[in-house]
């Protein structure tokens, strides 16, 4: 980890932190605004207690990433809204439960005294119950704060920028500096917010002006800096939103596209580390303007086709279908294919005399196969199993960045590799042939949302990509990130240069990555 690698990452911090803070503060304050009245209602109407707390508990048991991902189809949107709703749900249980516990925990003789002295039920609530329950309620809010700050890092895959951008892209590109910066920033933020709330509580309990001012000033600084950090993204509305799926090649291509657009004078926002289907839906809904997809992926997963026409036919049919069904424009093929292929370490392939997937059929029952999160539920896997009668002893899913090392180290015998991945060569793996053509071709295609397709300056800036990147160039660009430790932005500059395109000066590169 070099100094410049750290400086590279820190340049992204204001943007990520600003989004993260906004998301966290809005979700938390909404959580408090919703939960306090709800909890008070629950203490007054006892029959509501069980259903309300149960619903909140159930929301809590859903893993954070799943809850966030669930919000996308439910709301039909990506970005801030699904992340906000999921985090709001996440903040509810501790605030609700502690408020209810705190209020119900007030001793009955105190309540009787309040009533007997002539307080109305409202006065009893504000003068006796809430002040006495305050320490428990604030403990709940502090728990919620820490949870929400942590969970907000998971909103990157649903298209909301957060400190999670560091973590997700850092894990994919094996950039430990990025991961550490992301985790560290989130931890510091959680601690600062937690301590500010604690300070505010102490100020009120101890009636200390000094502590009150400190807590107030701290909160103001945070609110103010959130506003400042948000200003650059708040201006104008015509930013081009560039999407990327969660693996290296996608980050590099998204960077290359962003650099071209920036150079053409367009403002760019990035939504990286999004799942395949979420990204496609976001494109058709216009929440993402452009990204790179693969013909075979759209063919099998979006169009649900099981037949396999020749490569060129498939491309033509796909273009026509996307235009007809979704008004999505395929701007062009980039020139390379990134196929799914089954790969095994070369030494094992030679020992077992494996040349094609057909040779694998007999060995499969003694073998373990590793794949990315999507592969085993994709139609391509079903087609592959059926065509070659593959029946592996065990299946394991991996983060794509770890899958290749798992094959090299013998943790698994076979992996579902991406054929343009630089690690195939680096780790001495061999890709088995697919003589039955069970797997479709995966030509990289640049797709534009209906709105983006109407923007002439955008189309002009991107149509230069048509057919200029060959397999070798893409593999080299990927290898620079995965093996040599370059950032996707650096690799994108290499890629643009290699295909004869210029990239903007260094200072602006990756400003939004």
């Amino acid at each position: 980890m070099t100094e410049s690698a750290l400086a590279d990452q820190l340049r992204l911090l204001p943007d990520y932190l600003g989004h993260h803070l906004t998301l966290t503060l809005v979700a938390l304050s909404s959580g408090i605004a919703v939960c306090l009245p709800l909890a008070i209602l629950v203490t007054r109407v006892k029959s509501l207690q069980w259903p309300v707390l149960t619903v909140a508990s159930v929301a809590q048991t859903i893993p954070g990433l799943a809850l966030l991902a669930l919000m996308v189809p439910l709301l039909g949107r990506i970005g801030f809204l699904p992340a906000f709703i999921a985090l709001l749900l996440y903040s509810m249980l501790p605030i609700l439960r502690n408020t209810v516990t705190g209020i119900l925990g007030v001793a009955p003789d105190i309540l009787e005294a309040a009533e007997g002295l002539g307080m109305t039920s409202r006065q009893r609530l504000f003068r006796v119950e809430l002040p006495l329950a305050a320490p428990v309620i604030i403990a709940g809010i502090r728990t919620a704060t820490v949870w929400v700050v942590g969970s907000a890092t998971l909103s990157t895959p649903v298209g909301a920028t957060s400190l999670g951008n560091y973590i997700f892209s850092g894990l994919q590109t094996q950039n430990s500096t990025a991961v550490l910066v992301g985790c560290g920033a989130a931890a510091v933020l959680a601690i600062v917010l937690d301590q500010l709330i604690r300070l505010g509580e102490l100020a009120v309990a101890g009636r200390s002006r000094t502590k009150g001012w400190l807590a107030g000033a701290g909160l103001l600084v945070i609110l103010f800096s959130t506003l400042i950090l948000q200003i650059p993204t708040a201006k104008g509305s015509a930013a081009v939103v560039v999407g990327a799926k969660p693996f290296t090649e996608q980050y590099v291509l998204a960077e290359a596209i962003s650099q071209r657009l920036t150079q053409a004078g367009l403002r760019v926002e990035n939504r990286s580390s999004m799942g395949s289907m979420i990204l496609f839906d976001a494109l058709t809904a216009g929440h993402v303007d452009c990204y790179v997809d693969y013909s075979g992926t759209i063919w099998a997963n979006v169009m649900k086709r099981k037949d396999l026409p020749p490569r060129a036919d498939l491309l033509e049919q796909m273009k026509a279908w996307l235009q007809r069904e979704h008004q999505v424009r395929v701007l062009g093929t980039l020139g390379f294919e990134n196929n799914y292929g089954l790969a095994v370490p070369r030494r094992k392939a030679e020992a077992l005399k494996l040349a094609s997937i057909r040779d694998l059929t007999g060995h499969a029952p003694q073998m373990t196969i590793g794949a990315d999160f999507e592969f085993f539920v994709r139609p391509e896997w079903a087609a592959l199993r059926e065509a070659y009668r593959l029946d592996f002893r065990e299946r394991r899913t991996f983060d794509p960045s770890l899958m290749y090392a798992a094959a090299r180290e013998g943790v698994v015998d076979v992996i579902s590799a991406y054929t343009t991945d630089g690690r195939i060569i680096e780790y001495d793996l061999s890709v088995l042939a697919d003589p039955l053509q069970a797997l479709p071709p995966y030509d990289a295609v640049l797709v534009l949302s209906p709105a983006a397709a109407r923007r002439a300056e955008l189309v002009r800036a991107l149509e230069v990509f048509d057919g200029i990147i060959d397999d070798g160039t893409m593999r080299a660009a990927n290898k620079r990130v995965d093996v040599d430790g370059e950032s996707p932005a650096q690799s994108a500059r290499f890629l643009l240069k290699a295909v004869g395109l210029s990239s903007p000066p260094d200072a602006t590169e990756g400003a939004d990555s």
Partner: protein
Amino acid sequence: MIQIQQASKTYDRGRSFAVQGVDLEVGAGELLVLLGDSGCGKTTLLKMINRLVEPSRGRILVEDRDVSRVNPVALRRGIGYVFQGVGLFPHMTVAENVAVVPRLLNWEPAACRDRVDELLHLTGLSPRTHRDRKPDELSGGQRQRVGLARALAARPRIMLMDEPFGALDPITRDGLQREFKRLQQTLNLTVVMVTHDMTEALLLADRIAVMKQGVLMGTGTPRQILRNPSHPYIAALMETPRRQADQVESMLRSGGEGQ
């Protein structure tokens, strides 16, 4: 001042009664003690007076007005109440506790402050040392005094007291009882006090009302209750203080002969 007419309270639609058909009058400036075992309904009866408990049957008049027609919040603010176990608000200082009702009645802050100091003096506490303390920094006796000051804050003419001296050691209790009696006479307070302590009842009361299982067994001055009990239960109840007094007296007498 207070008239209780055929008051009954049932929690199970008439199968059993916590209070049953009680008729009772309390005159202005009178200190009436409701005496009986725990569970006899005396606290329930007390709480009916300021509508902490609503009677199932019968009615209660306070200063000639039927309490069921009076807004309960206004009613309670006009009647002092000393709770069993004091019930001070733990998050408030002594001064804030005492000023609760004046504040509910929107008194001026200055008037509240003056009243707090006046009451702390009256109940034998020093405003300067005690005003800003929290209840958990006080002794049991001091807490009881604050409870008393709080009940007196808005100058009520009627006070309801539920075992006000219950949890105190005998010496503190004796001192507070006598101070309270003096205070009650000076301020001409009408007081209904609940206790199960026979000696306390005999020493403080202008009149005692004995209850058993929700029913009023009889009323009378301490002297009447002691000398001519109207019911065998009352006679049995008075047996204990009477025997204790006899024993103490005989000890005093024999001690005197010894000298």
